[in-house]
């Protein structure tokens, strides 16, 4: 339609060179990760080279990059035709592969894993949709101005989600509350739900430290560990129950936070990150080596399960005691305990969320955000930087501690192996991905990062690669996180002007 409209010259050589470069990078990245495979020595040579995947990846990258260059150069038609054909063909083969068992056409597929093939098919569909859009709207939206517009659009999207969250949040909460009773929810799904909600809670806890106060904490798992071991040790040494220990575990973790924070919170940015990283490892190594107290690498087992007002969730309670099912006259079901655990963590997570929402509107919460924005300006206004940071650190740690004691009671067993750096990284990724400071963003990110890998189990060794790819994509397109949009904690518009020009009582 607008074929002759503003036909910009297209530099074929540069586009080919660029596509070649990208393909080269793909080869470099995949040749060691994907091309070479280590296998059991008994079944042949120790390293097997399989370059077909590498070649397929490089070819796809080359073609894809060239197609994007064509789109940018205002040549959507060939891309539309090629991408559509490719997408149609690939999808057809995939669907055919699902419906019929025979090998047949599936040999034509670029990769062995159906998930990757599907991802590529979806990418091709997106590419063709984009080409179609350009074909009939003619203007390329990839220049700087358009990028800014897109940025604004994404920000509006963030704002929109934030507004929706007011209605959407209760809905999500409703789903979360009735989840255990929904049809089709089995033990496995409930376990995943517990895991996701645990990470949501930890994300909300860390969000206080990273999102609000802007302190990059790479050792959050240390407080999780302190909480878990506090409960485990108190329970095993003093025979205390979960609900008695929960506040203690929080207090212990908060105390650990203050202990760490006091000397190191004068550090900024990267330096603080490194020290907290070290602290996380220190806690783990102490737990590993203090054999007489923590049982070292063997871990602590026999941690008591939580009870509902003293009613245990066991099939055969000790003599003279009621258990949950006998007290309520129900049939014993092992699922009861899981459902109860789910509600415990859901309650803890909600407490964390309500606390954060409330404290954000209080002076201390505002001071946290101000510290994130500009510490020097804070000092010049009389905000005590160290104390303010310490409160953020301690409160964040406290919620980590609650999460930790829940973890201990859920597993019934703790060992230092559960508290490695990858846990810290995961929780931090949830906060950053969701959009720093965004409560609903944390929920989405936790579902995305914890729930989806369960779905993507089939990808096995590519799983972490896909994880990294997703993170890079977010950093490129949405550096402030998926739903980073900040609503002011207080609006002047909500406060009636009244005595606008009457001076408040001033010192003279």
């Amino acid at each position, binding site marked *: 339609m607008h074929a002759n409209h503003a036909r910009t010259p297209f530099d074929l050589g540069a586009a080919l060179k660029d596509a070649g470069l990208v393909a080269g990078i793909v080869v470099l990245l995949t040749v060691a990760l994907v091309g070479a495979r280590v296998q059991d020595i008994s079944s042949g040579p120790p390293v097997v080279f399989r370059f077909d995947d590498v070649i397929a990846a490089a070819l796809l990258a080359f073609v894809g990059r060239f197609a994007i260059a064509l789109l940018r150069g205002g040549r959507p038609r060939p891309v539309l035709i090629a991408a559509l054909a490719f997408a149609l063909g690939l999808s057809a083969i995939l669907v055919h592969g699902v419906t019929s068992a025979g090998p047949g056409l599936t040999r034509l597929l670029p990769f062995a894993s159906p998930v990757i093939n599907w991802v590529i098919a979806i990418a091709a569909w997106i590419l063709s949709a984009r080409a179609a859009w350009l074909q009939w709207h003619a203007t390329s939206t990839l220049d700087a101005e358009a990028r800014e517009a897109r940025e604004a659009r994404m920000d509006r999207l963030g704002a929109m989600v934030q507004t929706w969250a007011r209605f959407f949040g209760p809905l999500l909460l409703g789903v979360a509350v009735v989840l255990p009773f929904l049809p089709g929810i089995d033990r496995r799904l409930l376990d995943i739900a517990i895991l996701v909600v645990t990470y949501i809670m930890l994300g909300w806890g860390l969000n206080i430290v990273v999102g609000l106060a802007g302190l990059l904490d790479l050792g959050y798992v240390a407080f999780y560990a302190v909480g878990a071991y506090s409960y485990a040790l108190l329970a095993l040494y003093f025979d205390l129950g979960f609900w008695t220990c929960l506040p203690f575990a929080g207090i212990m973790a908060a105390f650990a936070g203050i202990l760490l924070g006091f000397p190191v919170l004068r550090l900024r940015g990267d330096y603080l990150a490194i020290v907290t990283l070290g602290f996380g490892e220190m806690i783990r190594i102490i737990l590993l080596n203090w054999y007489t107290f923590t049982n070292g690498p063997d871990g602590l087992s026999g941690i008591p399960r939580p009870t509902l007002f003293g009613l245990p969730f066991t099939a055969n309670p000790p003599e003279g005691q009621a258990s949950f099912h006998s007290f309520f006259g129900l049939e014993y079901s092992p699922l009861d305990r899981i459902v109860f655990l789910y509600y415990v963590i859901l309650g803890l997570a909600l407490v964390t969320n309500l606390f954060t929402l409330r404290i954000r509107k209080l002076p201390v919460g505002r001071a946290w955000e101000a510290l994130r924005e500009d510490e020097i300006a804070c000092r010049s206004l009389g*905000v005590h930087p160290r104390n303010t940071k310490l409160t953020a650190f301690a409160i964040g740690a406290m919620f980590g501690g609650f999460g930790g004691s829940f973890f201990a009671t859920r597993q019934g067993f703790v060992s230092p192996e559960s508290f490695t750096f990858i846990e810290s990284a995961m929780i931090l990724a949830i906060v950053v991905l969701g959009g720093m400071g965004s409560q609903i963003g944390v929920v989405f990110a936790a579902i995305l990062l914890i729930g989806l890998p369960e779905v993507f189990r089939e990808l096995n060794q590519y799983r972490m690669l896909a994880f990294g790819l997703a993170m890079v994509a977010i950093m490129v397109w949405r550096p402030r996180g998926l739903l980073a949009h900040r609503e002011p904690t207080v609006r002047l518009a909500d406060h009636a002007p009244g005595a606008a020009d009457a001076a408040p009582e001033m010192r003279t």
Partner: protein
Amino acid sequence: MSPPQPALLTVEHLTMRFGGLVAIDDVSFEAPRAKITAIIGPNGAGKTTVFNCLTGFYKPTAGRLALRHPQRGECLLERMEGHAIPATAGVARTFQNIRLFPGMSVLENLLIAQHNVLMRASGYTIGALLGLGRYAAAEQRAIKRARYWLDRVGLVDRADWNAGNLPYGDQRRLEIVRAMCIEPVLLCLDEPAAGLNPRESAELNALLSFIRDEHKVTLLLIEHDMSVVMEISDHVVVLDYGRKIADGTPDAIRNDPAVIRAYLGEPEEEARP
């Protein structure tokens, strides 16, 4: 007429060394109460260093910085911690390169300036979390004060904007009224007119005169814009290479040969051959 009051701020023998570099060398001056004192001088004369010593960002190597607070008596600024200087001695400052909280709203910026008052009213958070105390009333008062100052600088309509999205001149003014929200007795302004156009400059003069005359705040001002300095300041201190070379009324300074040589320069027709 009331008898001459003692100066609000007395700086005596202030010296600041960074290793071998002497940034301020034995500078003494006074800032009279409810007057505007300008500190001028060429780049690198040590003006901002004086401010950093006064507001606790640097610990002076030697010297005495005495502030006679009308309610709290004499405060020795050189012995106080950085965050305590605004909180207890009532010294506020602005920065040469504006330091707002750009991601927060204009109103929030002004509420953070009232942090200590609000913090006490919220029972150090615990009271307000439990729903006790008079936090809501205190917040209303804080918002009222913020509105009063926003009204002064014509930013009421944009109170819910992100501070970082304001035009440059408004950011400058917002920083000044944010400093005023801590209810200071001494306000130190580091080049408030930098980057302002003549109209904005005139508005700034009016704002500063208002702060001095209506709120009886003592102002200390670093400025290169001579139109601002000569028009509104009551007292001028001239620094050069970390030393004080002159001290007096604007008129006396304008004609001081040492100042002309070091800073103001020869009259224009003689400077251009």
